[in-house]
């Protein structure tokens, strides 16, 4: 009878503390993108999700639970990730998510794990050389629910902004000539330009958008563990290795 009682207690506890639940279940569920080249992309032949975010998440699982195989992945989009975190479907978001004041009201963030900045992708030979060229009548393509769509409205108030469900659709719209430029974080645009040689980044990044790992509001124990893990992988070289593998540059200091 006594043991029954304490079991009940434990399950109640675990609902409150995500870190304890992670240790109980011996797995950690990350919400990741599956449509974002270099960061989180489903490999069609293996069915595995691959990318910078995935490798970082695996190293976090390794540091917290001792084995990178204990990281599990669930697909999220910019629109679904916060509701899924709040519902408890996922333990943490590692999905090219920019740390913003607005989002800090909804979730808690880890330290910065990737320094991104917003830029523009255009067809080679385009007249658009920088964000200043986006005047009246020009169309900019963005993704719904992203900070970049809000930023571009401030940086290019004359341009009209068209927003899509995901990067694949926004990029297809660019290729179909439905817009003059596609805007989002440079890291993602590098991936698109890498895959499609007729397109290039133009101008300097015009924002500073640090990516963070989000956990449910108030889960400070888990956030602390994630920060400790990030620090560790930066000091022992694992982070640099992952960075070079995907971004093909050295991390900026």
């Amino acid at each position: 009878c006594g043991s029954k009682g304490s079991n009940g207690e434990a399950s109640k506890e675990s609902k409150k503390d995500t870190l304890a639940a992670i240790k109980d279940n011996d797995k950690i569920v990350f919400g990741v993108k599956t449509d974002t080249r270099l960061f989180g992309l489903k490999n069609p032949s293996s069915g595995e999700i691959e990318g910078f975010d995935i490798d970082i998440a695996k190293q976090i699982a390794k540091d917290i639970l001792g084995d990178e195989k204990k990281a599990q992945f669930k697909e999220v989009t910019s629109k679904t990730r916060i509701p899924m975190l709040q519902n408890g479907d996922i333990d943490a978001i590692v999905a090219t998510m920019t740390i913003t004041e607005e989002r800090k009201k909804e979730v808690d963030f880890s330290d910065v794990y990737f320094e991104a900045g917003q830029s523009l992708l255009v067809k080679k030979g385009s007249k658009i050389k920088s964000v200043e060229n986006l005047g009246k009548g020009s169309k900019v393509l963005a993704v719904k629910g992203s900070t970049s769509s809000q930023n571009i409205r401030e940086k290019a108030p004359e341009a009209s902004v068209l927003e899509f469900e995901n990067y694949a659709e926004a990029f297809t719209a660019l290729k179909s000539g439905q817009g003059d430029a596609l805007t989002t974080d440079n890291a993602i645009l590098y991936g698109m330009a890498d895959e499609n040689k007729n397109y290039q980044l133009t101008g300097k990044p015009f924002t500073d958008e640090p990516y963070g790992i989000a956990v449910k509001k108030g889960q400070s124990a888990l956030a602390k563990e994630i920060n400790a893990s990030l620090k560790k992988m930066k000091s022992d070289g694992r982070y640099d290795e992952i960075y070079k593998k995907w971004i093909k540059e050295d991390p900026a200091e």
Partner: protein
Amino acid sequence: MNVSILFDNFSMYMDGFYHTLLASVIALAGSFVLGVAVAVMRITVFKPLQWLGTAYVEFIRNIPLLLITFVFYFGLPNAGLRLDGFQAGTVALTIYTSAFIAEAIRAGIQSVSKGQMEAARSSGFTYSQAMLHIILPQAIKIVIPPLGNQFLNLVKNSSILGVVAGLDLMYQADLVSSSTLVVFDVYIFVALFYLVLTIPLSIGVNYLEKRLEKSY
């Protein structure tokens, strides 16, 4: 429920409502005309037209609306014709709905007893006269309820514009939702706006059904 969501973003909701209404009206008229034309093709005695009509219906109604919309928005520019999100979505909606309307009308016409046509023809009516004066007036009564269903579906299906930046209610709601990080409340108001369109349509269809019932 957070009512300030509605008032703070009222201009976006109204813009969305306007585009949803416009797309629905255009698609409703367009799909009806196209649907009647295809239905006529399907019941004509001229075989090649019959096959063409059947192929159209079976092809269009068996593909998801989303894919038809993608073809018009993403695909058509490759063929040199660029439609913006609103135009592409409305055209796709028109074509998609027309296949279902064609089927409803064809079924209505064919449900009128064959004897009616035979009697009309033997009384000296031509085929088209018999169709116009004898068959269609009887068929329209049968067709109204399924047609009403298709029109209601059409209004709701107009939310497809949202995925190709068609400026409709769903698109605006997605933007409001992503900037405020509120999901549920934002879409509740969207549901209310759709009801503003669909309830009167529903009532109109019911009224028409009752009126026509009395007419014979």
